[in-house]
């Protein structure tokens, strides 16, 4: 399977099964398209002479010679040799390596679009006790096999409403990780309201990653991110986020925003966070909500969003040439050292390697399934008592989703989000097509950035990128 597109002056060809990325001239671009459409070399050659009367016979010969070379080195028109591995994945025994701890089923903000319904997840309010959290960490260690790196996200609701328990849980984890040969990596996801100097010092010492929720411009942020009295949060949280990010040094953090139908010009929110507020690590997610919600993204929004993603990619390249790079989470791509094929076909890990734990210790496949009784898997004391749910999630991969087998981006997304699929298609084995469309566009942009960086490097144009990834060499 081949995917071809043109962006920012580049003709880009992706060989899907080998995940190879090629940049071509017009002649090769059209030749590959003709071959991909089923023409044999002779037919393609005839068509090419009609499309490109300016091309000499030698040039056309060279073009097909290049293509043959790539085919023989298994980088173009490759077969899918990984399908058989999907069966192995289904039968594999999995270990748990990541938990999302819902330490607070309550929130000090009242954001209307919140998928977690202000942390209550359509249930009651509550805080996780230290004892429940400690048992969750023990459960993780007991079920993690030989995995060394264990991830724990303090999530909610708003986790800092229950900060004391977060601190104690980290202390507990640090006290036992060495004896179990484990390395806990904590993430804090916060709306910022309760950030204090103590939180900053703790987060920067203990948390591998910090996710800070801000939607961008003040009027955009304050449309949804309001407190229980309806007052916008921007003025209260921005100075705290700036202080935390400044103190964080080189450690990971993300400004994480949500865009909706009301701000389809979301690049202005990203640029506001970068240029006016000084943040460099940025993530901006499309809202996930009921299609009937007025803030839901629409089909008519799609062309605008496609354009926005491309505009963002081009602007990021401009910033790289100005030596003032920013990171956009969805454009981080490591072509040389990225995930292995098992990761690329095996899905996100929800319900198998990754689970959410409620304040009361119940286990769900991920944070987006919490309080859905059909998806309660068990609890941290008794473990997974509904293995059939785990098995059903184990069976989610790019080969069990029919739509994925026709999608060029499958090895960059691993089959997408099961929760989104359930909400959009009624089945965790389905797909959320709207999200797929946006994902494909983001991948086109991310790959174009890598192509442009390789081009700049080859042409000796100085630039600096911000994602710690090596610029891929041109072979």
């Amino acid at each position, binding site marked *: 399977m081949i995917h071809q597109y043109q962006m920012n002056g580049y003709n880009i060809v992706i060989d899907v099964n080998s995940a190879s990325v090629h940049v071509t001239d017009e002649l090769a671009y059209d030749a590959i398209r003709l071959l991909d459409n089923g023409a044999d070399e002779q037919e393609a050659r005839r068509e090419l002479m009609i499309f490109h009367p300016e091309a000499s016979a030698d040039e056309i010969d060279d073009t097909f010679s290049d293509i043959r070379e790539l085919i023989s080195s298994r980088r173009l028109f490759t077969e899918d040799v990984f399908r058989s591995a999907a069966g192995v994945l289904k039968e594999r025994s999995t270990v748990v390596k990541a938990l999302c701890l819902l330490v607070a089923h309550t929130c000090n903000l009242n954001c209307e679009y919140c998928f977690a319904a202000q942390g209550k997840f359509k249930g009651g309010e509550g805080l996780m006790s230290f004892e429940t959290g400690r048992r969750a960490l023990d459960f993780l260690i007991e079920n993690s096999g030989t995995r060394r790196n264990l991830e724990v996200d303090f999530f909610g609701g708003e986790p800092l409403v229950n900060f004391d328990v977060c601190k104690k849980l980290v202390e507990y984890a640090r006290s036992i990780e060495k004896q179990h040969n484990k390395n806990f990596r904590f993430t804090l996801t916060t709306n910022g309201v309760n950030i204090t100097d103590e939180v900053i010092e703790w987060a920067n010492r203990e948390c591998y990653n910090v*996710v800070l929720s801000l939607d961008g411009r003040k009027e955009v942020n304050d449309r949804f991110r309001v407190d229980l009295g309806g007052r916008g949060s921007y003025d209260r949280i921005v100075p705290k986020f700036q202080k935390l990010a400044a103190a964080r040094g080189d450690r990971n953090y993300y400004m994480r925003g949500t865009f909706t139908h009301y701000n389809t010009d979301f690049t202005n929110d990203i640029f506001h966070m970068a240029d006016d507020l000084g943040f460099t690590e940025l993530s901006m997610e499309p809202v996930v909500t009921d299609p009937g919600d007025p803030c839901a993204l629409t089909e008519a929004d799609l062309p605008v969003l496609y354009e926005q993603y491309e505009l963002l990619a081009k602007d990021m390249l401009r910033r790289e040439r100005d030596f003032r790079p920013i990171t956009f989470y969805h454009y981080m791509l490591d*072509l040389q050292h990225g995930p292995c*094929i098992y*990761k690329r076909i095996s899905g996100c890990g929800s319900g198998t390697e990754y689970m959410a734990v409620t304040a009361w210790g119940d286990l769900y496949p991920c944070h987006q399934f919490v309080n859905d009784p059909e998806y309660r898997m068990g609890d941290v004391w008794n473990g997974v008592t509904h293995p059939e749910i785990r098995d059903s999630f184990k069976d989610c991969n790019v080969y069990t989703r029919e739509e994925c087998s026709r999608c060029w981006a499958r090895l960059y*997304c691993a089959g997408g989000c099961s929760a989104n699929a359930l909400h959009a298609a009624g089945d965790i084995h389905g797909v959320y097509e709207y999200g797929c469309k946006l994902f494909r566009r983001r991948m086109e942009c991310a790959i174009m950035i890598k192509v442009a960086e390789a081009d700049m490097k080859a042409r000796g144009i100085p630039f600096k990128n911000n994602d710690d990834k090596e610029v891929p060499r041109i072979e």
Partner: protein
Amino acid sequence: MKHIITLETRDMEQSAVKGGCGECQTSCQSACKTSCGIANQQCENKEQ
């Protein structure tokens, strides 16, 4: 090659031989929480 430039990318078939250690980050755990992608995940296998 005169008409095609190829970027260096990880060999997927080779990754099937040495991959699958599972030490990499869980997809949704890092920043998104409402969508999924693995392209931005770093491989943690130093022997890849």
